Protein backbone atom coordinates (compact mmCIF):
# COMPACT_ATOMS: atom_id res chain seq x y z
CA UNK A 1 0.00 0.00 0.00
CA UNK A 2 1.31 3.45 -0.82
CA UNK A 3 1.70 5.97 1.92
CA UNK A 4 -1.06 8.57 2.36
CA UNK A 5 -0.07 11.93 0.92
CA UNK A 6 -1.03 15.60 1.02
CA UNK A 7 0.23 18.04 -1.59
CA UNK A 8 0.32 21.75 -0.78
CA UNK A 9 0.67 23.84 -3.92
CA UNK A 10 2.33 27.20 -3.31
CA UNK A 11 5.31 28.17 -1.20
CA UNK A 12 3.79 30.94 0.91
CA UNK A 13 2.17 31.52 4.24
CA UNK A 14 -1.00 29.45 3.74
CA UNK A 15 0.95 26.38 2.59
CA UNK A 16 3.51 26.67 5.36
CA UNK A 17 0.89 26.97 8.08
CA UNK A 18 -1.09 24.10 6.53
CA UNK A 19 2.03 21.92 6.64
CA UNK A 20 2.67 22.77 10.27
CA UNK A 21 -0.98 22.20 11.16
CA UNK A 22 -1.10 18.81 9.46
CA UNK A 23 1.74 17.62 11.66
CA UNK A 24 0.35 19.25 14.78
CA UNK A 25 -2.92 17.43 14.14
CA UNK A 26 -1.01 14.17 14.10
CA UNK A 27 -1.11 13.44 10.39
CA UNK A 28 1.70 11.00 9.63
CA UNK A 29 1.41 10.66 5.86
CA UNK A 30 3.59 12.38 3.30
CA UNK A 31 3.42 16.18 3.14
CA UNK A 32 4.83 17.81 0.01
CA UNK A 33 5.04 21.59 -0.42
CA UNK A 34 5.51 22.68 -4.04
CA UNK A 35 6.66 26.25 -4.68
CA UNK A 36 7.71 27.86 -7.94
CA UNK A 37 10.15 30.30 -6.37
CA UNK A 38 13.78 29.32 -5.88
CA UNK A 39 13.52 30.13 -2.17
CA UNK A 40 12.07 27.96 0.52
CA UNK A 41 8.80 29.31 1.98
CA UNK A 42 9.28 32.70 3.63
CA UNK A 43 7.20 35.43 5.23
CA UNK A 44 6.15 38.31 3.02
CA UNK A 45 5.09 41.07 5.47
CA UNK A 46 8.68 42.13 6.26
CA UNK A 47 9.47 42.54 2.54
CA UNK A 48 7.78 45.94 2.43
CA UNK A 49 8.86 46.83 5.97
CA UNK A 50 11.98 46.01 7.97
CA UNK A 51 13.48 43.71 5.34
CA UNK A 52 13.66 46.69 2.95
CA UNK A 53 15.60 48.76 5.43
CA UNK A 54 17.54 46.23 7.49
CA UNK A 55 17.68 43.27 5.12
CA UNK A 56 17.44 40.78 7.96
CA UNK A 57 16.99 37.43 6.24
CA UNK A 58 17.02 35.33 9.39
CA UNK A 59 13.47 36.20 10.39
CA UNK A 60 11.91 35.30 7.05
CA UNK A 61 12.05 31.50 7.03
CA UNK A 62 8.71 29.73 7.46
CA UNK A 63 9.76 26.08 7.17
CA UNK A 64 13.45 25.98 8.06
CA UNK A 65 15.30 23.03 6.61
CA UNK A 66 16.11 21.42 9.94
CA UNK A 67 12.52 21.73 11.12
CA UNK A 68 11.14 20.38 7.86
CA UNK A 69 13.47 17.42 8.01
CA UNK A 70 12.62 16.66 11.60
CA UNK A 71 8.93 16.82 10.78
CA UNK A 72 9.22 14.95 7.50
CA UNK A 73 7.91 17.81 5.36
CA UNK A 74 9.18 17.70 1.80
CA UNK A 75 9.71 21.17 0.35
CA UNK A 76 10.19 21.35 -3.41
CA UNK A 77 11.33 24.73 -4.69
CA UNK A 78 11.60 26.07 -8.22
CA UNK A 79 8.91 23.82 -9.55
CA UNK A 80 5.41 24.73 -10.65
CA UNK A 81 2.31 22.57 -10.31
CA UNK A 82 0.40 22.58 -13.56
CA UNK A 83 -2.68 20.45 -13.19
CA UNK A 84 -4.59 18.15 -10.88
CA UNK A 85 -5.92 14.91 -12.32
CA UNK A 86 -9.65 14.65 -11.64
CA UNK A 87 -9.37 10.88 -11.82
CA UNK A 88 -6.91 10.24 -9.00
CA UNK A 89 -5.98 13.65 -7.55
CA UNK A 90 -2.36 13.37 -8.68
CA UNK A 91 -0.58 16.67 -9.24
CA UNK A 92 1.39 17.19 -12.45
CA UNK A 93 4.51 19.33 -12.10
CA UNK A 94 6.35 21.30 -14.77
CA UNK A 95 9.43 19.07 -14.46
CA UNK A 96 7.31 16.29 -15.93
CA UNK A 97 6.85 14.38 -12.68
CA UNK A 98 3.60 13.59 -10.90
CA UNK A 99 2.95 13.59 -7.15
CA UNK A 100 0.19 11.38 -5.84
CA UNK A 101 -2.20 13.04 -3.41
CA UNK A 102 -5.12 12.08 -1.22
CA UNK A 103 -5.93 15.76 -0.90
CA UNK A 104 -4.51 18.92 -2.46
CA UNK A 105 -4.33 22.46 -1.12
CA UNK A 106 -4.15 25.23 -3.71
CA UNK A 107 -2.39 28.14 -2.05
CA UNK A 108 -0.80 29.70 -5.09
CA UNK A 109 -1.24 33.26 -3.84
CA UNK A 110 -1.37 36.33 -6.00
CA UNK A 111 0.97 38.44 -8.07
CA UNK A 112 1.18 42.22 -8.51
CA UNK A 113 -1.14 43.71 -11.07
CA UNK A 114 1.20 45.04 -13.73
CA UNK A 115 0.63 48.16 -15.75
CA UNK A 116 1.91 47.54 -19.29
CA UNK A 117 3.07 51.12 -19.69
CA UNK A 118 5.16 50.91 -16.53
CA UNK A 119 7.91 48.38 -17.06
CA UNK A 120 11.61 47.97 -17.66
CA UNK A 121 14.70 49.12 -15.83
CA UNK A 122 14.12 51.20 -12.73
CA UNK A 123 10.49 50.09 -12.43
CA UNK A 124 9.76 47.83 -9.49
CA UNK A 125 6.87 45.63 -8.46
CA UNK A 126 7.06 44.12 -4.98
CA UNK A 127 5.94 40.63 -4.18
CA UNK A 128 8.86 38.26 -3.78
CA UNK A 129 12.05 38.17 -1.80
CA UNK A 130 14.02 38.76 -5.00
CA UNK A 131 11.81 41.78 -5.76
CA UNK A 132 12.58 43.16 -2.31
CA UNK A 133 16.34 42.68 -2.69
CA UNK A 134 16.30 44.44 -6.06
CA UNK A 135 14.25 47.31 -4.66
CA UNK A 136 16.44 47.67 -1.60
CA UNK A 137 19.49 48.10 -3.78
CA UNK A 138 17.74 50.94 -5.59
CA UNK A 139 16.65 52.80 -2.45
CA UNK A 140 19.79 54.87 -1.92
CA UNK A 141 20.10 58.24 -0.20
CA UNK A 142 18.94 61.05 -2.44
CA UNK A 143 17.23 58.77 -4.96
CA UNK A 144 13.96 60.14 -6.28
CA UNK A 145 11.44 57.43 -5.61
CA UNK A 146 8.01 57.68 -7.19
CA UNK A 147 5.28 55.39 -5.89
CA UNK A 148 2.43 54.66 -8.21
CA UNK A 149 -0.52 53.81 -5.99
CA UNK A 150 -1.20 55.05 -2.48
CA UNK A 151 -2.23 51.78 -0.87
CA UNK A 152 -0.82 50.10 2.22
CA UNK A 153 2.12 48.56 0.36
CA UNK A 154 2.81 51.95 -1.23
CA UNK A 155 2.80 53.56 2.19
CA UNK A 156 5.17 50.98 3.63
CA UNK A 157 7.60 51.28 0.74
CA UNK A 158 7.39 55.08 1.04
CA UNK A 159 8.27 54.74 4.71
CA UNK A 160 11.25 52.47 4.02
CA UNK A 161 12.50 54.68 1.18
CA UNK A 162 12.15 57.75 3.37
CA UNK A 163 14.06 56.05 6.18
CA UNK A 164 16.85 55.19 3.76
CA UNK A 165 17.18 58.83 2.76
CA UNK A 166 15.36 58.79 -0.55
CA UNK A 167 13.09 61.61 -1.72
CA UNK A 168 9.62 60.15 -2.00
CA UNK A 169 6.64 61.11 -4.12
CA UNK A 170 3.37 59.18 -3.92
CA UNK A 171 0.90 59.34 -6.80
CA UNK A 172 -2.67 58.41 -5.95
CA UNK A 173 -5.47 58.24 -8.51
CA UNK A 174 -8.23 58.89 -5.98
CA UNK A 175 -8.97 62.01 -3.91
CA UNK A 176 -7.12 60.53 -0.90
CA UNK A 177 -5.01 57.40 -0.41
CA UNK A 178 -6.74 54.29 0.98
CA UNK A 179 -10.19 55.62 0.05
CA UNK A 180 -11.25 52.27 -1.38
CA UNK A 181 -10.03 50.39 1.67
CA UNK A 182 -11.15 52.63 4.51
CA UNK A 183 -13.25 55.44 3.00
CA UNK A 184 -12.47 59.06 2.23
CA UNK A 185 -12.69 60.38 5.79
CA UNK A 186 -10.17 57.92 7.22
CA UNK A 187 -8.02 58.15 4.10
CA UNK A 188 -7.77 61.88 4.82
CA UNK A 189 -6.81 61.13 8.42
CA UNK A 190 -4.17 58.66 7.25
CA UNK A 191 -2.55 60.91 4.66
CA UNK A 192 -1.28 63.22 7.41
CA UNK A 193 1.21 60.50 8.34
CA UNK A 194 3.27 60.33 5.13
CA UNK A 195 2.86 64.07 4.61
CA UNK A 196 4.14 64.84 8.11
CA UNK A 197 7.22 62.78 7.32
CA UNK A 198 7.87 64.86 4.22
CA UNK A 199 6.49 62.59 1.52
CA UNK A 200 5.06 64.51 -1.43
CA UNK A 201 1.59 62.93 -1.71
CA UNK A 202 -0.23 63.95 -4.88
CA UNK A 203 -3.85 62.95 -5.33
CA UNK A 204 -6.37 62.90 -8.20
CA UNK A 205 -3.51 62.15 -10.52
CA UNK A 206 -3.59 59.59 -13.33
CA UNK A 207 -0.34 57.98 -14.40
CA UNK A 208 -0.17 57.77 -18.19
CA UNK A 209 3.21 56.13 -18.76
CA UNK A 210 6.89 56.86 -18.69
CA UNK A 211 9.72 57.93 -20.94
CA UNK A 212 13.43 57.76 -20.45
CA UNK A 213 15.80 60.70 -20.72
CA UNK A 214 19.35 59.48 -20.50
CA UNK A 215 19.50 57.33 -17.40
CA UNK A 216 16.52 59.09 -15.88
CA UNK A 217 12.88 58.11 -15.87
CA UNK A 218 10.12 60.62 -16.37
CA UNK A 219 6.68 59.45 -15.24
CA UNK A 220 4.03 61.12 -17.32
CA UNK A 221 0.74 61.91 -15.63
CA UNK A 222 -2.55 63.77 -16.06
CA UNK A 223 -0.90 66.57 -14.07
CA UNK A 224 2.43 66.76 -15.83
CA UNK A 225 5.82 65.07 -15.67
CA UNK A 226 7.32 63.58 -12.51
CA UNK A 227 11.05 62.80 -12.67
CA UNK A 228 12.22 59.61 -10.98
CA UNK A 229 15.23 57.40 -10.39
CA UNK A 230 13.10 54.59 -9.05
CA UNK A 231 9.45 53.82 -9.77
CA UNK A 232 7.53 51.44 -7.51
CA UNK A 233 4.13 50.29 -8.70
CA UNK A 234 1.64 49.08 -6.11
CA UNK A 235 -1.78 48.93 -7.68
CA UNK A 236 -3.21 45.69 -6.38
CA UNK A 237 -2.79 42.01 -7.00
CA UNK A 238 -4.16 39.27 -9.25
CA UNK A 239 -4.82 35.73 -7.99
CA UNK A 240 -2.80 32.87 -9.48
CA UNK A 241 -5.61 30.66 -10.71
CA UNK A 242 -3.95 28.93 -13.69
CA UNK A 243 -3.75 25.49 -12.11
CA UNK A 244 -7.42 25.66 -11.11
CA UNK A 245 -8.55 26.77 -14.55
CA UNK A 246 -6.44 24.08 -16.23
CA UNK A 247 -7.85 21.45 -13.88
CA UNK A 248 -11.46 22.44 -14.55
CA UNK A 249 -11.98 23.88 -11.05
CA UNK A 250 -14.48 26.74 -10.69
CA UNK A 251 -13.02 30.24 -10.38
CA UNK A 252 -14.75 33.58 -9.84
CA UNK A 253 -15.30 35.89 -12.77
CA UNK A 254 -13.57 39.20 -13.37
CA UNK A 255 -9.99 40.25 -12.67
CA UNK A 256 -10.50 39.90 -8.90
CA UNK A 257 -11.47 36.29 -9.59
CA UNK A 258 -9.98 33.66 -7.39
CA UNK A 259 -10.67 29.99 -6.81
CA UNK A 260 -14.19 29.53 -5.46
CA UNK A 261 -14.37 27.68 -2.15
CA UNK A 262 -17.06 27.13 0.44
CA UNK A 263 -16.79 27.78 4.18
CA UNK A 264 -14.80 24.56 4.55
CA UNK A 265 -12.22 25.72 1.96
CA UNK A 266 -13.46 23.12 -0.57
CA UNK A 267 -13.18 23.84 -4.28
CA UNK A 268 -15.51 22.42 -6.90
CA UNK A 269 -13.19 19.41 -7.28
CA UNK A 270 -13.40 16.58 -4.80
CA UNK A 271 -10.50 16.51 -2.32
CA UNK A 272 -9.08 19.80 -3.59
CA UNK A 273 -9.04 22.77 -1.23
CA UNK A 274 -7.85 26.36 -1.57
CA UNK A 275 -6.69 28.94 0.95
CA UNK A 276 -5.10 32.36 1.26
CA UNK A 277 -4.90 35.12 -1.37
CA UNK A 278 -6.07 32.88 -4.18
CA UNK A 279 -9.27 31.65 -2.54
CA UNK A 280 -12.57 33.43 -3.10
CA UNK A 281 -14.16 32.03 0.03
CA UNK A 282 -17.69 32.03 1.35
CA UNK A 283 -17.66 33.86 4.68
CA UNK A 284 -20.67 33.88 6.96
CA UNK A 285 -19.72 37.12 8.71
CA UNK A 286 -19.34 38.99 5.44
CA UNK A 287 -22.38 37.25 3.94
CA UNK A 288 -20.81 36.50 0.57
CA UNK A 289 -17.70 35.23 -1.21
CA UNK A 290 -14.62 37.38 -0.64
CA UNK A 291 -10.99 37.21 -1.60
CA UNK A 292 -8.60 38.59 0.99
CA UNK A 293 -4.88 39.24 0.61
CA UNK A 294 -3.75 39.38 4.22
CA UNK A 295 -1.00 37.52 6.02
CA UNK A 296 -3.13 36.69 9.05
CA UNK A 297 -5.93 35.44 6.85
CA UNK A 298 -3.53 33.23 4.89
CA UNK A 299 -2.33 31.71 8.17
CA UNK A 300 -5.74 31.02 9.61
CA UNK A 301 -7.29 29.96 6.32
CA UNK A 302 -4.41 27.58 5.63
CA UNK A 303 -4.81 26.08 9.10
CA UNK A 304 -8.55 25.61 8.64
CA UNK A 305 -8.11 24.09 5.18
CA UNK A 306 -5.59 21.55 6.41
CA UNK A 307 -7.90 20.38 9.19
CA UNK A 308 -10.66 19.90 6.64
CA UNK A 309 -8.24 18.01 4.40
CA UNK A 310 -7.92 15.60 7.31
CA UNK A 311 -11.66 15.05 7.35
CA UNK A 312 -12.85 17.59 9.90
CA UNK A 313 -15.64 20.05 9.10
CA UNK A 314 -14.35 23.38 10.38
CA UNK A 315 -16.06 26.45 8.93
CA UNK A 316 -13.78 29.43 8.41
CA UNK A 317 -15.36 32.31 10.28
CA UNK A 318 -12.41 34.42 11.43
CA UNK A 319 -12.63 38.17 11.05
CA UNK A 320 -10.25 39.40 8.39
CA UNK A 321 -7.52 41.49 9.96
CA UNK A 322 -4.36 43.20 8.80
CA UNK A 323 -1.78 45.65 9.98
CA UNK A 324 0.61 48.06 8.39
CA UNK A 325 3.75 49.49 10.00
CA UNK A 326 4.89 52.75 8.47
CA UNK A 327 6.56 56.02 9.51
CA UNK A 328 6.83 54.75 13.07
CA UNK A 329 3.10 54.12 13.30
CA UNK A 330 1.01 50.98 13.48
CA UNK A 331 -2.21 50.84 11.49
CA UNK A 332 -4.68 48.02 11.92
CA UNK A 333 -7.93 47.14 10.21
CA UNK A 334 -10.39 44.39 10.97
CA UNK A 335 -13.64 43.31 9.30
CA UNK A 336 -15.56 44.43 6.24
CA UNK A 337 -17.33 47.78 6.28
CA UNK A 338 -20.60 48.22 4.42
CA UNK A 339 -21.11 51.20 2.12
CA UNK A 340 -23.81 52.68 4.35
CA UNK A 341 -22.06 52.15 7.67
CA UNK A 342 -21.51 55.14 9.93
CA UNK A 343 -18.26 55.97 11.67
CA UNK A 344 -17.95 56.11 15.43
CA UNK A 345 -14.58 57.60 16.26
CA UNK A 346 -12.72 57.06 19.52
CA UNK A 347 -10.11 59.80 19.80
CA UNK A 348 -9.40 62.66 17.44
CA UNK A 349 -8.83 61.87 13.75
CA UNK A 350 -6.37 64.76 13.65
CA UNK A 351 -4.53 63.39 16.65
CA UNK A 352 -1.87 60.75 16.90
CA UNK A 353 -4.00 57.90 18.21
CA UNK A 354 -7.51 57.01 17.19
CA UNK A 355 -9.87 54.17 16.39
CA UNK A 356 -12.75 54.40 13.95
CA UNK A 357 -15.51 51.82 14.33
CA UNK A 358 -17.78 51.18 11.34
CA UNK A 359 -21.29 50.52 12.61
CA UNK A 360 -24.21 49.32 10.53
CA UNK A 361 -27.48 47.64 11.40
CA UNK A 362 -26.70 47.59 15.09
CA UNK A 363 -23.33 45.96 14.87
CA UNK A 364 -19.69 46.76 14.36
CA UNK A 365 -18.71 45.60 10.88
CA UNK A 366 -15.13 46.88 10.80
CA UNK A 367 -12.61 49.09 12.56
CA UNK A 368 -9.50 50.99 11.54
CA UNK A 369 -7.02 52.23 14.11
CA UNK A 370 -3.89 54.34 14.31
CA UNK A 371 -1.60 53.18 17.13
CA UNK A 372 -4.51 51.65 19.02
CA UNK A 373 -4.22 47.93 18.37
CA UNK A 374 -5.83 47.13 21.70
CA UNK A 375 -9.09 48.66 20.43
CA UNK A 376 -8.88 46.42 17.38
CA UNK A 377 -8.86 43.42 19.71
CA UNK A 378 -12.19 44.67 21.08
CA UNK A 379 -13.56 45.36 17.60
CA UNK A 380 -12.67 41.84 16.58
CA UNK A 381 -14.75 40.41 19.43
CA UNK A 382 -17.69 42.70 18.62
CA UNK A 383 -17.58 41.79 14.93
CA UNK A 384 -17.56 38.06 15.73
CA UNK A 385 -20.45 38.49 18.13
CA UNK A 386 -22.34 40.58 15.54
CA UNK A 387 -23.00 43.34 18.03
CA UNK A 388 -21.79 46.79 19.09
CA UNK A 389 -21.35 48.76 22.28
CA UNK A 390 -23.30 51.96 22.86
CA UNK A 391 -21.74 54.83 20.89
CA UNK A 392 -21.09 56.77 24.08
CA UNK A 393 -18.94 53.92 25.37
CA UNK A 394 -17.05 53.50 22.09
CA UNK A 395 -16.12 57.19 21.96
CA UNK A 396 -15.32 57.58 25.65
CA UNK A 397 -11.56 57.30 26.01
CA UNK A 398 -11.95 56.98 29.76
CA UNK A 399 -14.18 53.94 29.37
CA UNK A 400 -12.46 50.57 29.57
CA UNK A 401 -13.48 48.92 26.31
CA UNK A 402 -12.17 45.53 27.42
CA UNK A 403 -14.40 45.47 30.48
CA UNK A 404 -17.35 46.90 28.57
CA UNK A 405 -16.90 44.26 25.90
CA UNK A 406 -16.73 41.41 28.39
CA UNK A 407 -19.78 42.67 30.24
CA UNK A 408 -21.76 43.28 27.06
CA UNK A 409 -21.11 39.96 25.36
Amino acid at each position, binding site marked *: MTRASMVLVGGGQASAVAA*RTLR*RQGYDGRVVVVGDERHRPYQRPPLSKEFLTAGDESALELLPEAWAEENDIQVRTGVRALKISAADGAVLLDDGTTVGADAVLLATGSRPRRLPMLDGEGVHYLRTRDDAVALREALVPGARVVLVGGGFIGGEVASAAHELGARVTMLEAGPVPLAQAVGAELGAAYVRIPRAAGVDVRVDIMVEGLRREGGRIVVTTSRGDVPADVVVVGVGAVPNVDIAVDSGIDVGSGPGGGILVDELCRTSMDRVFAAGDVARHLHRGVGEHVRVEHF*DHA*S*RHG*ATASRNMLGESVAYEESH*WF*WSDQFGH*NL*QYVGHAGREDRLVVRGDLEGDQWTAFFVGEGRVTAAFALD*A*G*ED*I*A*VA*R*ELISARTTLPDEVLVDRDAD*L*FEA*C*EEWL
Partner: protein
Amino acid sequence: MTQWHDVAKVRDLELRKKTAVTVEGTTIALFWIKGTVYALADTCIHEQRQLSKGAILFGKVVCPGHQWKFDPATGEAEGQGRCAPVFPVRVSEDGIVSVSLDRAGVTA
Protein backbone atom coordinates in the same frame (compact mmCIF):
# COMPACT_ATOMS: atom_id res chain seq x y z
CA MET B 1 15.89 27.69 46.11
CA THR B 2 13.62 30.06 44.25
CA GLN B 3 14.47 33.69 44.61
CA TRP B 4 11.38 35.92 44.79
CA HIS B 5 11.27 39.59 43.90
CA ASP B 6 8.55 41.86 45.31
CA VAL B 7 7.25 43.86 42.35
CA ALA B 8 3.74 45.18 42.98
CA LYS B 9 0.77 45.46 45.29
CA VAL B 10 -2.12 43.26 44.29
CA ARG B 11 -4.54 46.11 45.11
CA ASP B 12 -2.91 48.38 42.51
CA LEU B 13 -2.89 45.60 39.95
CA GLU B 14 -6.53 44.86 40.60
CA LEU B 15 -7.33 48.46 39.66
CA ARG B 16 -5.05 48.77 36.64
CA LYS B 17 -5.39 45.14 35.47
CA LYS B 18 -1.91 45.19 33.94
CA THR B 19 1.48 46.70 34.48
CA ALA B 20 5.09 46.21 33.53
CA VAL B 21 7.86 45.67 36.06
CA THR B 22 11.58 45.13 35.68
CA VAL B 23 13.48 42.46 37.56
CA GLU B 24 17.23 42.29 37.11
CA GLY B 25 16.94 43.73 33.62
CA THR B 26 14.04 41.52 32.55
CA THR B 27 10.79 43.34 31.86
CA ILE B 28 7.78 41.36 32.96
CA ALA B 29 4.13 42.09 32.22
CA LEU B 30 1.78 41.44 35.14
CA PHE B 31 -1.90 40.82 34.59
CA TRP B 32 -4.77 40.57 37.03
CA ILE B 33 -7.37 38.34 35.44
CA LYS B 34 -10.42 37.19 37.37
CA GLY B 35 -8.65 37.18 40.71
CA THR B 36 -5.39 35.60 39.57
CA VAL B 37 -2.08 37.31 38.88
CA TYR B 38 -0.07 36.16 35.87
CA ALA B 39 3.43 37.11 34.74
CA LEU B 40 4.64 36.93 31.14
CA ALA B 41 7.68 38.32 29.41
CA ASP B 42 6.59 41.83 28.45
CA THR B 43 8.25 41.80 25.07
CA CYS B 44 6.00 40.00 22.60
CA ILE B 45 7.77 37.02 21.07
CA HIS B 46 6.39 38.05 17.71
CA GLU B 47 7.47 41.60 16.95
CA GLN B 48 8.77 43.05 20.21
CA ARG B 49 5.67 45.00 21.20
CA GLN B 50 4.76 45.33 24.86
CA LEU B 51 2.19 42.83 26.06
CA SER B 52 1.51 45.07 29.05
CA LYS B 53 -0.07 47.56 26.66
CA GLY B 54 -2.39 44.94 25.24
CA ALA B 55 -5.95 43.95 25.94
CA ILE B 56 -7.24 41.38 28.39
CA LEU B 57 -10.25 39.79 26.74
CA PHE B 58 -12.10 36.72 27.91
CA GLY B 59 -9.15 35.58 29.97
CA LYS B 60 -6.58 35.98 27.18
CA VAL B 61 -3.90 38.61 26.70
CA VAL B 62 -3.99 40.18 23.24
CA CYS B 63 -0.83 41.88 21.99
CA PRO B 64 -1.60 45.35 20.58
CA GLY B 65 1.00 45.03 17.82
CA HIS B 66 -0.33 42.16 15.76
CA GLN B 67 -3.22 40.66 17.71
CA TRP B 68 -1.43 37.56 18.91
CA LYS B 69 -3.55 36.04 21.66
CA PHE B 70 -1.77 34.49 24.65
CA ASP B 71 -2.90 32.15 27.37
CA PRO B 72 -1.65 33.99 30.47
CA ALA B 73 -1.01 30.76 32.39
CA THR B 74 1.00 28.87 29.78
CA GLY B 75 2.11 31.68 27.46
CA GLU B 76 0.82 29.73 24.48
CA ALA B 77 0.04 31.95 21.49
CA GLU B 78 -3.27 30.80 20.00
CA GLY B 79 -2.86 29.30 16.56
CA GLN B 80 0.80 30.30 16.27
CA GLY B 81 2.52 27.25 17.69
CA ARG B 82 4.77 29.38 19.89
CA CYS B 83 4.89 30.35 23.55
CA ALA B 84 5.72 33.53 25.44
CA PRO B 85 7.89 32.95 28.50
CA VAL B 86 5.85 32.89 31.71
CA PHE B 87 7.19 33.39 35.21
CA PRO B 88 6.17 32.01 38.61
CA VAL B 89 4.03 34.43 40.64
CA ARG B 90 3.32 34.50 44.35
CA VAL B 91 0.89 36.75 46.20
CA SER B 92 1.54 37.09 49.93
CA GLU B 93 -1.17 37.40 52.55
CA ASP B 94 -0.55 41.13 52.85
CA GLY B 95 -1.10 41.59 49.12
CA ILE B 96 2.45 41.82 47.78
CA VAL B 97 3.00 40.33 44.33
CA SER B 98 6.34 38.61 43.86
CA VAL B 99 7.79 37.01 40.77
CA SER B 100 10.71 34.73 40.16
CA LEU B 101 12.96 34.64 37.13
CA ASP B 102 13.47 30.95 37.75
CA ARG B 103 11.44 29.34 35.01
CA ALA B 104 12.45 25.81 35.95
CA GLY B 105 9.25 25.36 37.92
CA VAL B 106 7.11 26.44 34.96
CA THR B 107 5.74 23.60 32.94
CA ALA B 108 4.66 25.57 29.86
